[in-house]
């Protein structure tokens, strides 16, 4: 029989050899008969060399031959099990034959998987991802600048950045780690003069602003004016309001408190007064604080981390044009302009917020060293009480155990400290010499790699490896003193201790890093800026809205975790998190102020669950347009964990046609008429149709917006907006699922999706396991996943319980 040709391709030999030496004969040929029978009767007529499918069963090796063949058989197993294959219109095998084939295949696949495991463990050692490295340096050195940017981006193949098998390493990384570590130390060792703690950014009286008060519009002026000691602004631009040009520079990196007193100027409704940070050298900018202000003077403050090359500026958003439609540029002088603006009365900057000088981070890096100002008072210098070498040794001994996440031997300390000797001998000084071993620690493999050290003669991780895995899971940072102490005492692996620690880690504010990184990657929130909608079609989309969108999803997920709510909430909840801005965007009344808070939703609301979040609508849109394919794919892949197959090679893609004659939906009809397309698109398109009710920025729409031939005009409403679109064809959000259920809109669809709660729980759990362990869910992990699901089923698979189960599971506790 030609069915399984043993093609031992060159690079599979090692793998096969490994298996062969461990299991002389996993499968008696007879055992596989049930599978072969099924293949011959039900599969081979479509899946051979002659037919145009991905799969050619005649050329497929047995599952133990290569990892690729194994993966293929897992896929075959899944599709038969889900009854997707064979398709209903072809030969349908008897339940008996199906069952026999499945159980044989399951046994075979589990065994192969377990054998390979025995040899390799579940997950290999992995390095910290670029984000984890940033968090780690922040934690070890007490700094806050951007560090990840020194490292090349992680592989973007859709998995988490922690998945060991996808991680790359190259000389680009090595040089990146080195640069990052050096930049981090630059930031940590702060010996400049003690800065002036409290300063005012006095826009109204700044010489630089004077220039912009006087300049005409065509030379960049005319958008601000001075009213007594207040500054009135109508745009909030970076070039005139930047702090550095107006006499306020950050001399040292650190946390600063900015307090702003201001109000809305001639408002019709509240406006947003915001603070933005910009760094021209790094090419980055961010909105880091935003407040609703009315005509009443308001004083607000925030704390933010700045580096010396950063500047910030007070900005304004949601400003309406003048009632006559004029914008500031054609309504001069600015004091005559009747549109909305912001009045800034006072901007105070306090910081760096340090209790000692040099700052604590510098002092704790060099325990035992005192610091005194130099003669010219321009900097501080170390006062050493022991030999320089001894002080360096102390510094190494203090940071190495934290960086390596375990006790460090005397020899290790000596070896590291000795790196400073040539430099000390060359009289390069204490600090320059100390930096050498410190840098070596920061890029040491002990710091960079999460190794799976095992307890003696056991498959369980050591307490220290467990502490690292746990803290990088829930904090994305190295373990703190308490975790290390428990590991040193050998108590962390006790179930009750472990459970207490999980609760402690979840309650800590560092857990926000988990919320952030996990949702960023799972729901692709980190892709929110991948495309930008056209400003005339979607004038409501701005930084303030973008920030609220992201906050909604993160706070929502954080709440599910904190309150241990059933997983069903992920897709169907009667609440969400909103502030005034996002509530207005959703047309929900009664939410005031810029603070995000929990808001109950009406039963008739299209919101509730993440599918109603504007952030999800945004990351699944293509600029100004939406496509049901992308959104359907998102739901299948990220929510249900059942990613569709990629389209077959060399099929013609559908070319979008928006001339108005055909809608995207009509074009997708082709998917249903062509059989090869229909097989996958009957799954992909319906959820996408249900999501079509959300426009690219997450507004619930009845009609498409059409920008063709449109001049911008004022649109009345709660907030007068300058828009450039007309309402086009009605949006059709109805459809029929592959199971044949009819839905009219997202609410109906959500109800249907709730029937898949178990699958959504399975996917959530799987994502948590992958993120926590850095290893994909493999065939033999499935039993454990199902066990946890059964254990949590009666409570509706609550999120916090899932996290607890992950941590106590052998998948987490073993390699």
């Amino acid at each position, binding site marked *: 029989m030609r069915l399984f040709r043993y093609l031992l391709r060159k690079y599979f030999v090692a793998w096969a050899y490994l298996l062969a030496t461990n299991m002389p004969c996993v499968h008696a040929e007879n055992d596989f008969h049930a599978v072969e029978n099924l293949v011959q009767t039900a599969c081979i007529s479509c899946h051979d060399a002659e037919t145009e499918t991905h799969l050619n069963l005649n050329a497929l090796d047995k599952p133990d031959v290569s990892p690729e063949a194994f993966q293929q058989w897992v896929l075959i197993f899944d599709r038969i099990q889900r009854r997707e294959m064979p398709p209903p219109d072809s030969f349908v095998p008897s339940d008996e034959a199906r069952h026999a084939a499945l159980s044989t295949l399951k046994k075979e696949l589990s065994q192969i998987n377990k054998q390979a495991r025995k040899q390799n463990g579940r997950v290999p*050692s992995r390095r910290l991802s670029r984000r984890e490295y940033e968090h780690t340096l922040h934690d070890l050195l007490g700094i806050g600048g951007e560090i990840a940017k020194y490292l090349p981006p992680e*592989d973007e193949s859709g998995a988490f950045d922690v998945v060991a098998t996808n991680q790359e390493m190259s000389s680009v990384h*090595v040089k990146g780690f080195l640069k990052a570590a050096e930049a981090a130390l630059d930031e940590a060792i702060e010996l400049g003069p003690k800065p002036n703690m409290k300063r005012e950014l006095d826009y109204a009286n700044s010489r630089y602003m004077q220039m912009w008060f006087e300049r005409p519009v065509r030379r960049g002026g005319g958008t601000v004016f001075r009213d007594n000691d207040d500054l009135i602004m109508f745009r909030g631009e970076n070039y005139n309001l930047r702090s550095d040009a107006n006499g306020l520079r950050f001399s040292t990196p650190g946390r600063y408190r900015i307090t702003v007193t201001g109000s809305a100027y001639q408002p019709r409704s509240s406006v947003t007064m915001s603070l933005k940070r910009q760094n021209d050298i790094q090419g980055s900018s961010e909105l880091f604080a935003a407040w609703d202000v009315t005509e009443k003077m308001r004083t607000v403050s925030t704390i933010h981390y700045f580096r010396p090359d950063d500047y910030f500026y007070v900005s304004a958003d949601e400003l309406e044009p003048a009632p006559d439609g004029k914008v500031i540029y054609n309504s001069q002088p600015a004091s005559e302009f009747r549109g909305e603006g912001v009045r800034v009365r006072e901007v105070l900057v306090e910081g760096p917020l340090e209790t000692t000088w040099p700052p604590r981070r510098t002092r704790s890096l060099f325990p035992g060293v005192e610091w005194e100002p130099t003669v010219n008072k321009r900097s501080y210098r170390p006062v050493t009480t022991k030999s320089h070498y001894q002080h360096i040794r102390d510094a190494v001994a203090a940071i190495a155990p934290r960086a390596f996440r375990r006790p460090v031997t005397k020899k290790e300390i000596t070896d590291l400290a000795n790196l400073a000797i*040539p430099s000390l001998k060359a009289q390069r000084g204490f600090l320059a010499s100390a930096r050498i071993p410190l840098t070596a620690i920061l890029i040491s493999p*002990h710091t960079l790699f999460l190794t799976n*050290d095992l307890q003696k003669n056991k498959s369980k991780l050591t307490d220290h490896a467990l502490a690292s895995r746990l803290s990088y899971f829930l904090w994305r940072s190295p373990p703190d003193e308490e975790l290390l102490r428990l590991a040193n005492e050998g108590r962390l692996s006790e179930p009750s201790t472990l459970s207490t620690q999980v609760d402690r880690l979840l309650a800590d504010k560092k857990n926000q890093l988990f919320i952030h990184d996990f949702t960023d990657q799972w729901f692709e929130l980190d892709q929110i800026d991948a495309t930008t909608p056209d400003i005339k079609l979607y004038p409501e989309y701005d930084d303030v809205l973008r920030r609220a969108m992201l906050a909604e999803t993160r706070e929502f997920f954080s709440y599910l975790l904190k309150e241990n709510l059933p997983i069903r909430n992920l897709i169907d909840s009667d609440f969400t998190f909103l502030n005034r801005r996002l509530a207005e965007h959703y047309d929900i009344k009664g939410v005031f102020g810029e603070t995000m808070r929990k808001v109950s939703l009406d039963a008739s609301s299209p919101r509730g669950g993440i599918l109603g979040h504007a952030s999800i609508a945004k990351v699944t849109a293509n*600029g100004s347009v939406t496509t049901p394919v992308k959104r359907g794919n998102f739901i299948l892949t990220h929510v249900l964990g059942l990613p569709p197959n990629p389209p077959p090679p060399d099929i013609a893609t559908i*070319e979008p*046609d928006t001339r108005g004659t055909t809608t995207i939906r009509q074009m997708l009809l082709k998917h249903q008429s062509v059989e090869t397309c229909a097989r996958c698109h009957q799954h992909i398109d319906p959820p996408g149709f249900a999501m079509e009710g959300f426009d690219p920025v997450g507004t619930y729409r009845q009609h498409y917006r059409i920008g063709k031939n449109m001049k911008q005009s004022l649109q009345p409403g709660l907030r007068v907006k300058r828009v450039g679109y007309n309402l086009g064809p009605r949006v059709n959000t109805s459809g029929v699922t592959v199971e044949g259920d009819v839905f009219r809109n997202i609410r109906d669809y959500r109800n249907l999706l709730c029937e898949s709660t178990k699958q959504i729980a399975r996917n959530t759990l799987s994502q948590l396991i992958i993120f926590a362990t850095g290893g994909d869910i493999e065939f033999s992990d499935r039993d454990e996943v199902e066990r946890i699901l059964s254990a949590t089923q009666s409570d509706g698979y609550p999120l916090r319980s899932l996290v607890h189960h992950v941590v106590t599971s052998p998948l987490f506790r073993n390699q």
Partner: protein
Amino acid sequence: MQTPLSRRTALKASGITVALPLLESMSIAVDGTQHPPPKRMVCICNTLGLHAPSLFPTTTGSNYESTEYLDILQRHRKEFTLFAGLSHPDQVGKDPHDTEMTFLTSARNPGLGGFRNTISIDQFAAEKIGNVTRYPSVSLSSNRKKSQSFTRNGVMIPADDMPSQVYTKLFLRGSQKEIRQQRQRLADGHSILDSVIEQIRSIERTTPSTDKRQLEQYFDSIRVAETELNNSEVWLDRPKPSVQTVTPENIADPSDLVGRVRSLLNLIPLILQTDSSRVISVVIQSDHGTPNIDGVSDGHHPLSHHGRDPERIAQLKIIEMEILTCLSDFLDGLKQPSENGSDLLEQTSVLFGSNLGNANAHDPRNLPIILAGGKHKHGRFIQHNKKDNVPLCNLFVSLLQSMGIEADRFGSSTGTIDM
């Protein structure tokens, strides 16, 4: 692992000891014999394609009838060849724009599970010819740090997107103090990396052999990094070339697409002429928002999804014609004297193209590919089968060979191509 020759060794072996990079000295060795002028390569990718009906002529060969787009390049007609019917096979990936990652590599199914990128043609060339210049290669981007240059391991080399930083790095001489600090830093780097290698060895002794892949990669990567640091150390002693221009200004506004592209392209003749690098890649990104060009009111990316709407196509064409004008001016900029009196353009193969053949449908086939300069047989429009495309890598192989680089295969190549 293969250790490439250090630059010092290479330079010693070739008998060049005079201060680099004086172009004349590169081509005339100490014995007075003339060396052939060096070969150079510039790869430019416009990530949103070019509207095919405006680009491709209906007639082929050297008498092809020009088109709207080719009219812009009219004065260079004898200096470039246009190809149709080329593409990389199997480019269906996770996201339809993921082909940006594979334009210079041809790795299959970008972004799908288990995807791993492969070496890009610029890095392949840099491995072979990059060791004689201060920088083996330069990667530029019009917005953000995403480049199309990938190492042998498939790791992206971050791009420079600020002309002033590139200029400073390449042409501005640091003070004596800065140079001394830099040298000290490199020396420290060496002892740090040596210590890290010792630590890896000690971990490896206790790690099971099957769990060493990442550690071994770290080990190998450090070795490569050390060699690279050695190379940059050699260059520390050599003065940077002095150029008679002012540091270009960075354009902060991303919507100034044309300004940004132009300022990047303006750097390239300087880089080549001073022989600071011979291999350059440039990405014209798709995320510039709405370009501030007269007559354009929507974003470049949204307009590329024109939905066959004539008005939107008209706007898209305005943007693309601006980009082609930049290309045309760039080619003018390369027509400067170089080694042996020949012009820079004759030594430089310029590959200009896109990872998308039809951005409206994200179709990665029938890519628009222009090959200019490099003393190839130009002035032609060569049309390959539109349905059954020829691998773009066949062109890559021919290109590498024309640069004197030994390569029978590259990526998904199946042979070579007439060019």
